[in-house]
């Protein structure tokens, strides 16, 4: 892969911005289009791009499969955990208003933020997991790349 010099340079420049864009989409979701789903996919895309240019092994050492596995579960936990937290605070499942009983709308903000983070984590991890899983299989046709 060493011959693709331009690709490597360009992508090295691009990847951080893609990741930052993901977080922009994530946190700007309250105001414009976007949210955890899209952000998660974009975040995963940044890692996938890295893997495509620099090789799967490099990507795996940057984002180890064990993290991915953990991230999948953590995403669901973060989402469900928010609900459990509202339970513990005496509200219904996912009733974020109980976080700040005085200002229900603030609680809603926190809650939405938390669950969107959960979605981000889950989506990004699962996308990576699928990519790792397919990418790591031995290829049947050695003649092509």
């Amino acid at each position, binding site marked *: 892969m060493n011959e693709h010099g331009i690709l490597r340079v360009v992508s090295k420049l691009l990847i951080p911005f893609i990741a930052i864009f993901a977080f922009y989409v994530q946190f700007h979701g309250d105001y414009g289009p976007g949210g955890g789903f899209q952000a998660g996919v974009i975040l995963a895309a940044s890692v996938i791009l890295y893997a495509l240019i620099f090789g799967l092994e490099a990507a795996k050492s940057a984002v180890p499969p064990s993290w991915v*596995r*953990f991230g*999948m*579960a953590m995403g*669901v*936990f973060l989402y*469900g*955990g928010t*609900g*459990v937290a509202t*339970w513990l605070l005496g*509200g*219904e*499942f*996912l*009733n*974020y*208003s*109980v976080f700040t009983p005085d200002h229900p709308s603030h609680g809603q903000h926190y809650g939405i933020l938390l669950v969107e983070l959960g979605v981000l984590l889950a989506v990004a991890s699962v996308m990576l997991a699928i990519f790792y899983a397919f990418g790591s299989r031995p290829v049947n046709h050695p003649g092509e790349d």
Partner: protein
Amino acid sequence: MDILSLLPPWLLTHGVALLVVLPLLAGAAMAVIPRERIAWTITFMVMLICMLCALTLALQVIDQGRLSYKMGGWEPPYGIEYVVDALSAPVLLLISAMAVICLFYASPSVKAEVEPKKRAAFYGAFLICAAGLLGMVVTGDAFNVFVFLEVSSISTYVLVAMGHSRDRRALRAAYDYLILGSIGATFFVIGIGFLYMETGTLNMADMSNILDGLDGGSRVAQVGFAFIVIGLGLKLAMFPLHMWLPGAYAHAPSFVTIFLASTATKAALYLLLRFAFTIFDLSFDYVVTILSQFVLVLAVVGMVFASIQAIFQTDVRRVLAFSSIAQVGYILLGLSFLTLSGLTASYVHLINHAFIKGGLFLAVGAMWYRFGITRVADFRGLSKTMPWTMSAFTISGLSLIGVPLTAGFVSKLQLATAAWERGYGWAVGVILFSSILALVYIGRILRVAYFETPPQINGVEVLKNEAPLIMLIPMWILAILSIVIGINAGWVVDAAGRAAELLIPTQMIGRGL
């Protein structure tokens, strides 16, 4: 209710949501739990709690009638509502109880059939599947049904594919199921979309009210209903849409087959009842037409054809799978009568068949566990080599045929009576003809098992090699349950009667006849 006052009040209010959330979260936890034993213990505990939860809910429903839970604290048409009533409570209990029973059995069975490193995640997928089924049943929101339908479907495809370490054909079966299941889900979601277009709401109760006000609604609602019936028909293996089922049941790991056979199609059947009778209702002509003509014909054809196909299968699991398709036909037949007694019979059979088929697959799984066999011809002499397993299989098998003093008899009696009362004398004939076909395909297996000599290995007869106790207990629980219901089905029939009254309110009786 005295018992209810003993329980923590929190559980009484939030149990509805706990039932679904707990297995979902536990399922997620399984991805990071390394040890199989811990995974099994957690899974078992979670499903046990779910079962108790479902039991509490059932008691509450008896006590207070309909229970409603507002997810996120939002009022129903805006937020998602969870509802437990006489229709859903028994199905919830059935699913969670079958999960517990299967899990008993799982620890040896999964050890033999699933790769050691993957067992924890396998239990995770199971938990998610169970949560999906429970969610489908407990939700009172039409779109939420679709979400949980997907939750259960995706995990089911995975679970079926896990049969690949036993039989590579599991992958093909899972793929077929995936394709057909996705088509079914697409039809279903298009139907939901049309309903939303017609009513502007996703809440089932709200939807029902608005449809009533629109007098059934326009063509949009009609097409929506048709799409929903087709989508659910695929999921519940209605006759021409059943192609995924035999492969999925025959090649999945035993544990998965047992759970799916006894719960998955039942949850979809529940949804059909829910959509056809409570969201829509019998005052709409198109509902009556679709149910009492199309579904009726498909049910009858399915009962006969699937039973005949079952006779010609060589693999016992395929025999039972085709039999399941036929049994779905029975349930749909009762439904298509559109009478109180027909729906009661249908609901009774829904419950009974779960126990019966669960028991049969439990026994077949144990036979594979000991001898690596699933084909009819390999059952020779099993009554001698595995007497307890074979006896349980026999009892459940007789129940499937509909022999008196078993659960199967009760449901067939109810169904035949309902058919007669509806004026469908010919349907009685079909029911009994299909029972005779069941006699043939079960009798064929029993004959090999009881009247042929056990095979020999290297010239030595295979000795008695009974399944472990932990596998025997669940299958005997179900076999005994089958007999208990056969002797006194009062409680099942009562529960079904209450559900049927919910489906056809008094003013609707006789509608569409």
